[in-house]
């Protein structure tokens, strides 16, 4: 695993997402209220671009007709066929035993701690007092 600087934390507002490419692979990074999570940006079903999906809560029910919606915004629905994936883990909700999106660890690290990589050099100006998004890939 190599640490890659992929952008500034402040570039993704809470509830938003950003797509980056690492080693040729598209990765979508979500900001859930200040926590950052990355998923391979391909639905495991037919490779649709997950970043174009709707972020939703998850509907659950213990009794027919009596449903609750929790974890608002923490699931991404594939824009093609509506499959639901937990943004935190990549786990599908529609068939958890069989279907999962590959998750990537996303961290925010202070500028001083960074190992410099090509992406940072090309696109992100380093600022000693700014916080950057790091992806292990």
């Amino acid at each position: 695993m190599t640490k890659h600087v992929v952008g500034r934390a402040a570039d993704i507002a809470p509830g938003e997402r950003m797509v980056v490419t690492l080693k040729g692979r598209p990765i979508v990074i979500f900001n859930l209220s200040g926590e950052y999570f990355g998923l391979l940006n391909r639905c495991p079903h037919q490779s649709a671009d997950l970043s174009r999906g709707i972020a939703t809560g998850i509907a659950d029910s213990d009794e027919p007709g009596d449903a609750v919606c929790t974890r608002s915004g923490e699931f991404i629905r594939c824009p093609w066929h509506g499959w639901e994936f937990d943004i935190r883990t990549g786990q599908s909700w529609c068939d958890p035993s069989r279907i999962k999106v590959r998750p990537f660890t996303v961290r925010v690290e202070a500028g001083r701690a960074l190992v410099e990589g090509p992406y940072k050099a090309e696109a992100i100006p380093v600022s000693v007092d700014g916080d950057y998004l790091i992806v292990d890939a």
Partner: protein
Amino acid sequence: MVNTGSDSMKIDCDIHPGVPGVEALLPYMSDFWREQFVNREIDGMELASYPPTAPISCRPDWREKGRPPGSSLETVRRQALDGLGLSLAICNPLYGGQVAMSEHMGTAVSAAVNDWIRHEWLDREPRLRASIVVAAQDPIAAAAEIDRCASSDRRFVQVLMLVANELTLGRRYYWPIFEAAQRHGLPIGIHAGSMQRYPATPTGSPTHLLQDYASAPQMFCAQVQSLLCEGVFSKFPDLTFVLIESGVGWVVPFMWRSTKTWRGVRGEVPWMKRPAIDEVRDRIRMTIQPFDGPDAGPDLERFIEQLGSDDILLFSSDYPHWHFEGSDAMPPGLSSELARKIAWQNPLNTYPRLRESLS
């Protein structure tokens, strides 16, 4: 008690003793209903889905002149129990109580059929078991009838409904029936047949019996989908549904399509916890006649593989309905191991009360 020593033991999960006529049921009716049937000269309450003289309703060599098919115990003994080599057989009477326009009449006829089966068949033949016939037109009364029969006689092993009722089957209108069945540990049998007061296909009334009969899987698809979408499998976690005379070939593409669609809209029915492909394998059982899967050979093997479970199929002859010749109702080409499971182990696992018969 039934001996379990032989490899050829068979439990037939679907035979149809015929009600000879309303007269046979009169001793099991209240004074009120007895007068209604006698004074109004009501008879001939066979289901329109099985006209007595239609070829499908009775195999030619099983017909008896002047009597409805399978309507005497002696005949059923000779043609089915002995003729087909059955160790046990579950009687599924099909008669007008299940479809009567009057729910009160339907309830009375169904109760009379249950008492008639108990006294004139089960009491006289130890190889027979029976389903509790209910008039789903009145689910509260149906639940009471299940309680009455299931509590008093352990030879009743199942609750019997028809596949086409006045509402789709998962609706909570029918839940009292499901609650009662689960309370007594009985599966719900869903048998082919319609009330015939709505089209027997979703796109209009058929012009021929062939259409009616060949279209039956459409109704089974709709009803299994209804049970799934209304959350019945989650609400009644101990309930098994047995599809009887449904055919079997349709269920694989049904599982695929239902599961595929559910994955995209799961959030609309969050009480549906698992897709069809899982619920069918765990909670649905199907009798094997009429067998409408592929012929013996590689296609049949692939079909069994696609079913994805050896537990689903239950042996049945569907006596006296006409689906096969000779004395072996098992479709040819199944492995002997699977055939044995279908004939013996699967019925015992599906109907817990059958185990009480084993020595």
